[in-house]
């Protein structure tokens, strides 16, 4: 609360200056746009397959590339974008950082946070912005939390999701399996909350597209699969016959050892094997090769889903600023959620946000580590307004009514 009371001074000073510029609105007025990128660095517990850990700066570098892209565009319009980055490994500290950025006058946030921190932070920001009594409020992009609940019943104000929900990923995979007539699934999962959530999304997808889960098992053995996979896995996967093994193991604790070790010689899909992702190095079509090479030049590594989600978040803000020529958060929000908004995201279609729950509609690539296998939605999965809405939660399936609250 103290923090909150402290804000008007800095806020006023800042806006006296920038407000002048806003009202001029001419193409030649210099416009500065501040975006806060907040990351909570999480400790991952040790996993069996620890060969390829997630890069520490996953997400951040995507935002940085988008900033670079947007400033190249911005210099023709006298728009300059700034990224204020805060990284912490402590949720308390993260919240303090967010409050500090708000007090500095920042209203545009990119959150690389787990769901619970995201909810706490967004609630705090919503309250703070309501209390100002002005129409000015905040716009938040979620680039990490894939929780379905955030799109269905735990709706949070001011939040747009550029990362696909687990349901979107699961539906993308299930459509492909359905198309391939791989209808009988063995579902195996790890023990984490995330694994259960992933498995649940796969169950939902099985039902939606008329597939059958012949058996479901949880991996709980304590064996060292690096030595014993060939012995353990066939036994573990010896069930009623299936067409495919669906793995739910987000951290890669045992899933990597399932391939080629199943009781029946069947493909492995899910978090390992054929994997639905927001982004991967193997996506090269639709001009994606250019984005990949820009990213590699900047970072020296491959671009992953989180980098892509952050890139989309910053690009969404910049695209709205370019088209509306303002940094006023409310105008940007209205524009982004309107049908005028379109973003080129290197997936062969224009991307935009679902008005009910703020989820970015996007095709989902299905990849294995060295090539792109397919991209969902699959042909033939129809929808009255957008085929992309066959992935994830459609309006009737969600209680969220974001547009009304924007």
């Amino acid at each position, binding site marked *: 609360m103290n923090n909150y009371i402290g804000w008007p001074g800095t806020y006023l000073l800042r806006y006296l200056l920038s407000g002048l510029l806003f009202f001029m609105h001419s193409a030649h007025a210099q416009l500065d746009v501040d975006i806060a990128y907040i990351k909570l660095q999480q400790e991952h517990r040790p996993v069996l397959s620890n060969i390829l850990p997630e890069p520490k700066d996953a997400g951040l570098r995507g935002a940085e590339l988008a900033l670079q892209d947007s400033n190249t*565009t911005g210099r023709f319009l006298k728009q300059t974008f700034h990224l204020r980055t805060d990284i912490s490994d402590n949720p308390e500290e993260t919240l303090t950082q967010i409050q500090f950025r708000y007090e500095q006058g920042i209203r545009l946030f990119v959150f690389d946070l787990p769901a619970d921190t995201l909810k706490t932070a967004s609630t705090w920001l919503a309250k703070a912005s309501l209390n100002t009594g002005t129409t000015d409020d905040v716009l938040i992009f979620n680039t990490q939390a894939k929780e379905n609940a955030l799109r269905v019943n735990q709706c949070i104000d001011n939040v747009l999701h550029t990362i696909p929900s687990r349901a979107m990923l699961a539906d993308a995979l299930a459509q492909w399996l359905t198309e391939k007539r791989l209808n009988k699934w063995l579902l195996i999962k790890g023990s984490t909350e995330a694994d259960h959530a992933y498995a649940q999304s796969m169950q939902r997808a099985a039902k939606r597209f008329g597939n059958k889960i012949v058996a479901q098992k949880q991996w709980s053995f304590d064996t060292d699969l690096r030595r014993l996979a060939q012995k353990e896995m066939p036994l573990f996967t010896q069930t009623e016959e299936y067409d495919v093994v669906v793995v739910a193991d987000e951290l890669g604790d045992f899933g990597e050892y399932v391939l080629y070790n199943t009781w029946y010689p069947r493909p492995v899909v899910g978090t390992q094997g054929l994997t639905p992702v927001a982004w991967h190095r193997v996506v090269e079509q639709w001009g994606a090769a250019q984005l990949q090479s820009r990213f590699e030049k900047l970072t020296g590594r491959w671009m992953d889903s989180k980098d892509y989600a952050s890139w989309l978040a910053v690009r969404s803000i910049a695209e709205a600023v370019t088209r509306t020529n303002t940094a006023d958060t409310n105008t940007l929000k209205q524009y982004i959620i309107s049908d005028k908004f379109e973003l080129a995201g290197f997936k062969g279609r224009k991307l935009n946000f679902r008005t009910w729950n703020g989820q970015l509609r996007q095709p989902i690539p299905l990849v294995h580590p060295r090539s792109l296998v397919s991209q969902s939605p699959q042909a033939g999965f129809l929808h009255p307004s957008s085929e992309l809405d066959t992935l994830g939660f459609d309006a009737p399936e969600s209680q969220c009514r974001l547009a009304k609250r924007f």
Partner: protein
Amino acid sequence: MKKTQRLTQFLAISALLLSVQTAQAQTAYVSNEKDDTLSVINLDTYEVTATIDVGQRPRGIILSKDQSKLYICASDSDTVQVMDLSTHQIIKELPSGEDPEQFALHPNDRHLYIANEDDALATIVDTQTSEVLAQIDVGVEPEGMAVSPDGKIAVNTSETTNMVHWIDTETMQLVDNTLVDQRPRHVEFSKDSKVLWASSEIGGNVSIIDVASRQITHKVTFKIRGVHPDKIQPVGIKLSDDGQYAFVALGPANHIAVIDTKTFKVLEYILVGRRVWHMAFNADQSLLLTTNGISGDVTVVDVAKMKAIKSIKVGRYPWGIVVKSQ
């Protein structure tokens, strides 16, 4: 006995072919992006007569005014190659800046305006002295490039910045920018240099821009039965010399649209190969040839009948195309 017969037959046919070729058969050159080759097509027989190795990832290609030389953007070799068309030998490599994708030749037949896709730059090169005359900062992923027929203005599109950038060819400086819809790919001037056509691949439309005011005056949109609107992705544009028609390649919609340039109404959609990218006319503009990226072929369209009449298999990912009239 049989052998000699065959030989005479062979010689006769060869002679015939040769005489056809000397009787000024028109030739199409197609760059195959994934094969690092050019396909050479005889437009009398519609056959590929040669496949020539060139630099890596060849995309934009363009003829010199006298049609004796072919300029090739070898994107991954970071160079523009110059091919002598009488010998099919690369005779020169021009400094193009990194990752040249598309380019345009100034009516002075000397200055090449090159889009450097990875570097957000446009490079101007003197083809005679191989000198880089200027490098101009443009938007992210510069792509389309055109010089007005009167030679005064060059324009470049940037795919991620979503702008048309206007360059004064005399001062070689950027003078203005026009915001267009998502992923502008290709630009084409009308013959009188007064109107600019710019396609937006993801925006799904073509902006008609008044060159004097640099304002968009009209947007052409497309609708094809049975094709999802998102799959209609305009790329290449060709304007007929008589000023009547514009042809727009619609990418994964697998069609080209024929537009009346007076009313901006779409008159016809012609089904061609898969993911149609760029186009070229033959000399009298009775034929229009399209490169189809995914199906790896070239479609020949009869312009009068507005119908595809032939498809010719070329290399992988055919990209650019030009026709040498003799």
